């Protein structure tokens, strides 16, 4: 029993996430279409959902080519890392009171560690491709991840201080009465921005900036290896959305509907937010990205932590 239940949860989570990742391609294209006054994919199947299947079949059967000049083992390893680390982070997320793979008492740190590991994927992909554009993309990704990782962690410390625990389950439980977005609005904003940068999505998609770097770190990738980067990115988007919900929007708490549905709906809301960002904002310049991170977000996160700490002290 003790073994079977976590395994079932793992299976459920894996199934849901991998389907979600492919479904997100459709969601993103449809939403982008909606916001650009067009339809997006709507020909195959109801509402164009068949496009998901078509995309999957296409990407599975594409030629999976490894360039002869690439560093082969690393080249193959890189796309696996991003999916693995993104999936590993879901281990600590409480989807509902019952559905939780493991309740680590250092859950927040585990997630931060895993998302930091994700940088190896892009950096190694850029390096092993042996292509200057890929390398530039990989370099950008590492610099970006390093800078944004710092205040991503700091922005969560306010929440941790309020809860008094690093466990995500405890954090969700602590939000039963009041969501942390009310008490930690700056923390939420900083975390959301860091999250966007962490998944290198528009407006922080410098590692793959197609107007400058061909396709950035995955220029040399094709077939399912490229698909893995894609899946990794979408799982990353789901992960950041799920974490925003967990940390700031009360996780699975909500009236009437079952907890799992609440969690899903909230997560979907933030995923749509990611797409809205992509639909409306242009890409930052690289120095802007760095200046924004170090000169604005980091002090803001520190200030938020300091004020939160002071208020907690004063309260007690």
């Amino acid at each position, binding site marked *: 029993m003790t073994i079977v239940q976590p395994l079932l949860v793992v299976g459920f989570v894996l199934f849901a996430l991998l389907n979600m990742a492919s479904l997100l391609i459709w969601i993103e294209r449809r939403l982008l279409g909606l*916001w650009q006054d067009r*339809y997006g994919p709507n020909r195959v199947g109801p509402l164009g959902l068949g496009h998901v299947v078509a995309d999957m079949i296409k990407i599975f059967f594409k030629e999976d080519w490894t360039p002869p000049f690439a560093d082969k083992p690393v080249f193959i390893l890189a796309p696996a890392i991003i999916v693995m680390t993104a999936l590993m982070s879901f281990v600590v997320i409480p989807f509902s009171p019952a559905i939780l793979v493991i309740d680590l008492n250092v859950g927040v740190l585990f997630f931060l560690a895993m998302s930091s590991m994700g940088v190896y994927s892009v950096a190694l992909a850029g390096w092993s491709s042996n292509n200057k554009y890929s390398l530039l993309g990989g370099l950008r990704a590492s610099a970006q991840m390093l800078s944004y990782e710092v205040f991503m962690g700091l922005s969560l410390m306010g929440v941790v201080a309020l809860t008094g625990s690093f466990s995500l389950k405890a954090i969700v439980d602590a939000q039963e009465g009041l969501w942390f977005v009310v008490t930690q609005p700056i923390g939420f904003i900083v975390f959301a921005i860091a999250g966007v940068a962490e998944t290198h999505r528009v407006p922080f998609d410098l590692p793959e900036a197609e107007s400058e770097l061909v396709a950035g770190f995955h220029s040399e990738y094709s077939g399912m290896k490229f698909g893995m980067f894609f899946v990794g990115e979408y799982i990353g988007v789901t992960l950041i959305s799920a974490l925003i919900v967990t940390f700031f929007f009360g996780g699975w708490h909500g009236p009437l509907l079952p907890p799992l549905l609440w969690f899903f709906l909230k997560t979907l809301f933030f995923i749509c937010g990611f797409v809205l960002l992509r639909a409306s904002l242009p890409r930052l310049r690289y120095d802007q990205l760095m200046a924004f991170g170090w000169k604005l977000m980091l002090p803001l996160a520190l200030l938020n932590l300091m004020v939160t700490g002071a208020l907690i002290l004063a309260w007690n």
Partner: protein
Amino acid sequence: MIKLIASVLDFGEGAYSLLRSMGIVLKHTFAKRVTVQYPDERPKLAPRWRGRIVLTRDPDGEERCVGCYLCAVACPVDCIALQATEDEHGRRYPEFFRINFSRCIFCGYCEEACPTYAIQLTPDFEMSEYNRQNLVYEKENLLINGTGKYPGYNFYRVAGLAIENKAKGEAENEAPPVDVRSLLP
């Protein structure tokens, strides 16, 4: 201090502009979509749409084209080829008339040049072919059984050209030919 205030204001302006552009994009959720879903939903073509070229007939059902080559000359891409000939009644007509639609740019110059309203452009653009050779239309592909845009017009009825069964001066609004000798003093 002033510098700090200025940078805070600058940040505020930037943040506002970002949020505003996101808001504008979000508003498009309720905007009408501009896509015309073509095969299901047909675009409305104007009557003067310059599409597939046809050769029309006059109200009597005869070919209007008199094989004057003006269309072929006017054509900027040289996609029209024809050979004029004459029938037993003295009417000129094209022996063959060929339009290569893989070259045609649908500029309508041929229609403008045509003195007999024979060649006309129609509101039809669905001419895709799998075989490039099929885009070369011969006369039997071009000729239609109608008058096109000019229902009443018949070139030989208004032109002072003698053909069989119609001598000079018998056309509509045409005065009989002047006997030049009667003009002598």
